[in-house]
Structure formats: structure tokens, C-alpha cells
């Protein structure tokens, strides 16, 4: 679907410094080899079933379906992956690739911390040295994930430059890579960045869509009407959407509207007029940037969606009308988490809850013959500190205060 330089229409490409050209050539060569080798997919899929609970279930959300009284709602349970998110699919795949390339060290950026934890886990399992770059702001809001990364042997480096969030962690990871590429692979966490990352990450995440398609056909004997996924960088959306290339299935990506699209404090690249095409972090896509081309600050309650760019593959789908993009505000997201917990006993991550919020808006208007699938890309219970804060739960606040006294 992409050409030799990783273009999807006008989007994508590889805007990399000269020093990394040889490293990318080697990465592309190895990736092509594994992609064309059916035994590699078998190895990968065996590893994922043995280590990460795949195939993940496709859960019928009976109570939510009754609540909205419209389409039948199914939830693809990527939260049940080892480490609690779809990120495991990508890192384990890249881990196998690192083994083949004979490299001994991995680095990664992380926003919410899910990708960092997943990478640290993979590094522990495969015996790689591991360094994780994480914006200082995110280190503060995601301490439990930092704790686990460090316990698994990774070095976590807080990034104090720029806006101190995900994009700055990506820049810093690139700075490490241009120095240490001889023994180091950069495990980019989403379907962004220079070619071949968008294609490669989507390839590993396509396991989501492959399973979901097979599962819904087994359960219902027909394809869904719509499938929903949240969109930060876009890897879980690419994973789900790739299983449903059919014209009859509408793919809906839900971006972070933050405080509301009109406030300017959001992270919606495709469904707001605020983003324009640009080139940064090695690829061409829609970016939230000013007229000079300087990147803007973004906002989302979900650290994993708090990002300036978006997968070039999704930009292309947006342009060609192959997917529809919506957004959900922080507030809608909190309401969606609450409703899903009460009705189904399932806790979506704040990131994933954007997809739920988007689907909930549309479920009632569909008929009982329609089916929708929501991708639950991650679990929320791991983010108890963030979610409890977002809920403003007074009892939790009391608990933290008392707990803090124990450490005095």
C-alpha cells in the first residue's frame, strides 16, 4: 500500500538525518524479509498467544446494547494483553526483529507509559538493555508506570526539553539513536515516524483486526456496520481498521477534543481545522502547528493521545474518505468510563474511552440489525491515579493524604 519511500498519497516518507540512512536501510531490509515470511507471522502469533493472552476476546456488551437500544455493541479486548494494552502487539513483534538484527539494546518513547512498560517487559524477556524516554510532565502523571519500568530493569529518562510530553520524548529517543544505532533499535510505539515505522507498526497491530473479523463472523455470521477506535498516533486504529477493508464497514477514529475543539486545547488533527500538513519527527502528515511551522501545545486528559501528529496512513484514509474522524472531550470520556464500568464491569483506559464515547453517541441511531465494534485498546485500572483524579473522588483523595503521612 505504500511505495518504496513509504508514501501514502502525499503523506509519510522518511525525513531522516543522513547518519540514520544506513540504519533505516537495514531495518527496511529486515522488515521486508519477515513480512514476506509466513513462518515469521506464525512465530509471532505463537509468542502472542503464549505470552500475551491472544487471541483477545470479542466481548458482547449486552447491558450497554440494551441501554442504548440501538446497534449490538461488541468490545475488542486489547486491555487483556499482557501489560494491559495493545502496545504489547507492536513491541513483541519489534522484539523478534531486534533479535534477527542482532542488536542488544532497545530504546523507546512513552506518553501514558503503556508503551514504555510494554517495551521494558519485552526487553526483560528477550534480555535487551532498555532505556525509556518520557516527558517530565508524563513522568509526574504516570508514576506507577515509571515504577514498573524501573523494576523490570529499564532506565527511565525524564525529558525536560520542549513541552515535556510525548513529542519531546520522541525527539530525545532519536537523539539517542543517532549516537547508538550500532547496537540499538528504536522501538517506536505508534504508526507514525519515518518509513518503515507506520507500515511496520500497523503490520504487527493488524493482529487485532484479523482476530476481530474472524470472531465477529463466527459470532454473528456477518460484518459489523461500524468499528470505532481512539486515535493518538493511530496504531490501535490501524490494527482494527485493517481487518475491515470492506466498503460496507465504516471505520471511525475518535480523537481527543480535550477541553473542546473550539478552545484550541485539544489533540484533534484530522477532525478539527486546526491542523495542517507539515513535516516533523521524520514524516509528513497533519500536525497541530502554527503558521511558521512551530508545533503547538496539545491537550488531552489521556496522555497517550496528547500528540501533535497522526499516522500518515490515517491521514491518507481521511483524505480519501476511507475512514471518518470524530472527537470526544475530556468530560465525555469520563462519562463513558463511568457508564462502561457500571453497565459492564469493564474499565477502559482513558485513551480507549474516547472510542467508547464516540460509539455511544451513535449506537442509538442504529438498528438492532447493526453491529458495532469498539476497540478497547487498554485497561484503565492501571491508571488509577489519573482516573481517580479525573473522577474527583473524595475518598481516594483522603486515602492519598493518609498514605503520604506514612512516608513522612
Amino acid at each position, binding site marked *: 500500500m505504500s511505495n518504496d*519511500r513509504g508514501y501514502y498519497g502525499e503523506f509519510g*516518507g*522518511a*525525513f*531522516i*538525518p*543522513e*547518519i540514520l*540512512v*544506513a*540504519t533505516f536501510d537495514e531495518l527496511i531490509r529486515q522488515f521486508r524479509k519477515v513480512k514476506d515470511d509466513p513462518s515469521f507471522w506464525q512465530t509471532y502469533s505463537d509468542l502472542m498467544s503464549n505470552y500475551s493472552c491472544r487471541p483477545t476476546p470479542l466481548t458482547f456488551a449486552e447491558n450497554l446494547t440494551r441501554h442504548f437500544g440501538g446497534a449490538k455493541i461488541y468490545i475488542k479486548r486489547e486491555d487483556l494483553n499482557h501489560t494491559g494494552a495493545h502496545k504489547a502487539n507492536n513491541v513483541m513483534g519489534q522484539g523478534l526483529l531486534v533479535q534477527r538484527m542482532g542488536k542488544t539494546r532497545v530504546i523507546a518513547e512513552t506518553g501514558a507509559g503503556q508503551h514504555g512498560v510494554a517495551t521494558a517487559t519485552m526487553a526483560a524477556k528477550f534480555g535487551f538493555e532498555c532505556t525509556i524516554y518520557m516527558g517530565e510532565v508524563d513522568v509526574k502523571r504516570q508514576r506507577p508506570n515509571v515504577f514498573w519500568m524501573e523494576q523490570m530493569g529499564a532506565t527511565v529518562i525524564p525529558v525536560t*526539553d*520542549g513541552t515535556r510530553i510525548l*513529542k519531546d520524548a520522541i*525527539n530525545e529517543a*532519536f*537523539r539517542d539513536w*543517532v*549516537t*547508538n*544505532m550500532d547496537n540499538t533499535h528504536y522501538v517506536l510505539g505508534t504508526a507514525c515516524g519515518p518509513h518503515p515505522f507506520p507500515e511496520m507498526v500497523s503490520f504487527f497491530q493488524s493482529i487485532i483486526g484479523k482476530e476481530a473479523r474472524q470472531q465477529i463472523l463466527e459470532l454473528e455470521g456477518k460484518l459489523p456496520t461500524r468499528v470505532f477506535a481512539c486515535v493518538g498516533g493511530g496504531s490501535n486504529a490501524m490494527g482494527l481498521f485493517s481487518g475491515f477493508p470492506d466498503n460496507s464497514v465504516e471505520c471511525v477514529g475518535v480523537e481527543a477534543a480535550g477541553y473542546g475543539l473550539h478552545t484550541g486545547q485539544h489533540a484533534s488533527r484530522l477532525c478539527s481545522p486546526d491542523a*495542517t*500538513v*507539515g*513535516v*516533523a*519527527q*521524520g514524516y*509528513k502528515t497533519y*500536525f497541530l*502547528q502554527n*503558521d*511558521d*511551522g*512551530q*508545533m503547538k501545545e496539545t491537550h488531552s486528559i489521556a496522555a497517550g493521545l496528547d500528540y501533535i501528529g497522526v499516522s500518515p496512513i490515517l491521514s491518507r484514509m481521511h483524505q480519501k474518505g476511507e475512514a471518518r474522524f470524530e472527537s470526544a472531550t475530556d468530560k465525555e470520556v469520563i462519562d463513558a468510563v463511568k457508564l462502561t464500568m457500571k453497565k459492564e464491569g469493564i474499565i477502559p483506559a482513558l485513551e480507549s474511552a474516547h472510542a467508547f464515547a464516540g460509539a455511544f453517541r451513535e449506537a442509538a441511531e442504529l438498528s438492532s440489525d447493526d453491529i458495532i465494534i469498539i476497540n478497547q485498546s487498554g485497561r484503565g485500572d492501571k491508571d488509577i491515579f489519573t482516573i481517580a483524579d479525573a473522577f474527583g473522588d473524595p475518598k481516594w483523595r483522603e486515602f492519598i493524604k493518609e498514605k503520604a503521612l506514612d512516608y513522612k
Partner: protein
Amino acid sequence: MLKKYIQKSLKTKEILLMTHIVVGYPSLDASMKIVEEMVKAGVDLIELQIPFSEPMADGPVILKANQKSLELGTTVKGCFEFAQNVSSRFDIPFLFMTYYNILYKYGVQSFVEDMVKVGIKGAIIPDLPPEEGLEYEEAMKSNNLCPIYIFSPTTTDERMRYISSCGKGFIYCMARKGVTGKTTQFSNELDEYFEKCRKNTSLPLAVGFGVKEKADIDYLKGKADIAVIGSQTIRLVDEKGIEAVGDFIKGL
């Protein structure tokens, strides 16, 4: 144009010196004074970096200068005005250094035409490999400006020849892996690399990344045509003030 200037200057000097500033750091006025100090001290070329919010190839020193300059409100338009000022006041070639998004958002063609208007002679765009830069290369060459491309220690012979065919003016050789501003051991181990660079291009060679003292420049004499000092002068301004720049450069 640049190539001729370099060759002519090399008749009277063993090696030329190119320095670098981030426009608007620590302020626009200070940038002007720094350029003045540099020119008075005998610098042969100056890179004017237009700050970018995501300077992926730059190390901590230049990265912070980029951020600070943007915080102070430096704009692309402001950088063009600054370029016009310095190029009309001082009789040495000035180049732009920046990241591709700055050109892309401005419009590559307009950016290049405005470079001509303000008297800038060439540009270094570290995140634009020649394969992605066809529009840029054509616009630059048709306006008689120099697209400066980069050789790195991992670049193959074949690729060096390709890059050389796309570039004009001179080639920028990274002395080592990594980002700007970290230490480089300039020793005979690098001889082979510079010989390889020389063999694969007829353009003059500039060497940068980690050049910071007289010994480094002495080593580069006879191997490179231009020594590039980047982060070190910014460090110097941070620590000792603008006045220290002139003496530092004369000492090289």
C-alpha cells in the same frame, strides 16, 4: 558562487572557519552583536539557524537556544529580516540552517526566492535527505543558491557520490555519530573517513560536530577546507558573554 569564494579564500588561509548562531538567541540584538564579533574576528562563513520547535538533530546546547529564541517570539519573517540586515552589513556569505518544516510551511519556492532577496547564499537542512528534497534542490539550483548536503561516517561511497551530485557549494561532513555539541576525538582514526569523503566529491569539505578548540582545527588543516564551530560559541556566550566570542575565534 560559494565554491569559488571558498577556493579563493583558501589561497590565503590553510583552513576556513564557519560559525553558527541561533537567530534570536539570547536575543535578536545579541545575535547581531555576536555576528559582528565573529566577522571582525575573521570568520569566513556564518550559519544562521532559524529556530524550530522540534530540532531533532541538535544536542542540548542548540536545542535550548532554539526553545529560548522561540519563547522570546522569534518568527521566520524575523529571521529573514535579520538575514537581510547581516548580509547587507557584512561582506561574508551567510547560510540558513533549519529543519524542513520551516520551508515546507512557508512554501519551498517562496522560501528560496526570499533567500535570494535577503542575500542568503545557501542552506543546510539536516532532516531533508536528497531523496525527499527534489523540489528544494531544483528551486535552490535554479536560483543559484547552494543546497548543502551532509556526509556521515555511516554513508557509503556510492551514496556519497549520489549526495555530492545533489549538492552545491560544499559538503558538510559530520565528524562522528550523534547530535551537535558533544565531544569528538579528533585523531588519526578519522583520517580514513576524511579521505573517503574527499575521494567521493569534488566539492569543498566542511567538517563539524564537536569542533571546539584550536587543536581540533589544527588537526583538520589539510584534511578539510572549512572547520565548523557550532555549539561552542553558544556555550561561550552563555558562560562569558558576547565579548568573549571575538577573542575565542581569534585564538583559533
